[in-house]
């Protein structure tokens, strides 16, 4: 059985300077209560691995606004001028990664693979400083696996064993991130009795989840 805790208690587990993966795509499917709790706790110096930094005042954007983030690995910051300003001023280190490559790098980290071989980004700025591997006369970019200290994910529902089920486009990076950190915190709309989520609906087996954070706690 997994421990169900409050968002504030979850934030207490996460120290300044931690490397976090945070699920969501422009805020959809992000663990909003966990983000709020990190802001309230005044966390600093966080590294955030996420698809995007949403918008100021929304989702991961709240962490940027609060000055909690000093490094992001992400595919898109176009909707958040604060992240862009932070990058241009040098306050926030930003590593931009093509979205599909970001997804595969996270999966590789979680699945025990040594890297990702993709054509995406070949010959562009995204390839700078990265290795090109030739296989049977074709060139592939080698992108390295990503891991985090904590993965903060959102699921539609979960059971007390930690089994998590996702809904529609709120799925996005959440199931991938749930594999790539030793401590996975799963924020969810409802925590259900074990046995009530059919095995085929489980997107993340409970063995990957350490803490559950319900919205009605």
């Amino acid at each position, binding site marked *: 059985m997994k421990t169900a805790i409050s968002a504030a208690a979850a934030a207490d587990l996460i120290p300044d300077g931690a490397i976090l993966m945070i699920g969501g795509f422009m805020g959809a499917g992000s663990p909003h209560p966990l983000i709020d709790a990190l802001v309230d706790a005044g966390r600093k110096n966080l590294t955030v691995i996420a698809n995007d930094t949403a918008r100021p005042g929304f989702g991961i954007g709240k962490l940027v606004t609060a000055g909690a983030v000093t490094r992001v690995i992400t595919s898109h910051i176009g909707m958040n001028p604060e992240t862009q300003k932070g990058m241009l001023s040098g306050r926030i280190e930003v590593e931009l990664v093509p979205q599909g490559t970001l997804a595969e790098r996270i999966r590789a980290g979680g699945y025990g693979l040594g890297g990702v071989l993709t054509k995406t980004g070949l010959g562009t700025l995204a390839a700078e400083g990265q290795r090109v591997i030739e296989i049977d006369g074709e060139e592939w970019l080698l992108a390295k696996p990503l891991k985090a200290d904590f993965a903060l994910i959102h699921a539609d529902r979960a059971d007390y064993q930690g089994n998590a089920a996702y809904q529609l486009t*709120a799925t996005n990076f959440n199931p991938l991130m749930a594999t790539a950190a030793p401590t996975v915190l799963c924020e969810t709309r409802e925590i259900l009795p074990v046995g009530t989520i059919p095995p085929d609906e489980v997107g993340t087996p409970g063995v990957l989840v350490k803490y559950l954070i319900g919205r009605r706690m």
Partner: protein
Amino acid sequence: MHPEEVIQRRVAIELKPGSLVNLGIGLPTGVSHYVSHADNILFQSENGIVGMGSRPPEGMADEDLTDAGGAFVMAVPGAATVDSGMSFGLIRGGHLDVTVLGGLQVDERGYLANWMIPGRMVPGMGGAMDLVSGARRVIVAMQHTAKGGPKIVPQCTLPITATRRVTLIVTELAVIEPTDEGLVLRERGPGVTIPTILDGTSAHLIIPDVVPEMKLAAVLAAESQVA
């Protein structure tokens, strides 16, 4: 006719019945207004849906059903949702028939630049690099010039999105096809002359003997719109 409408209606003709299409945020999204429901074209959004529908009516939005810009959408019957891994598996693996994207520049090699202006605008590439590298056909839908300056140039001065030659460039003035020989002018915009096109283009254009005026998709009744 507004330049955007010309571009959108011309691009709509490129979308074959039954195909899987990704439309970029902004101008490309509007292409869907000129696609007939009868053609059974499926729209994919890289945040994880195959079969994206139009904006929901007031009060019927769901925070778990959005497009790649984070805006609320609906799902068509037969839609499927996937995680980000599979979403880009579809794109990178060559399962996406067409991507329609905006552009900042396209050059004589057919290379597209559409993701940053160094020092001024660095939004990040999002899914653009995967889309341009992986889709079977890449259509650039953009206005022919920006503030009077050409966007179709000998060689991109902005960082390119991929070293893959795009399939077609559609502007309000012209349809241009990148080929082994260079950029070929295929069609003229409605009422547009070849000198006008050349005027707004700094790249070398190959001009065939016949350059017909472009055909445009019909304006559909509102109830046929899928997005």
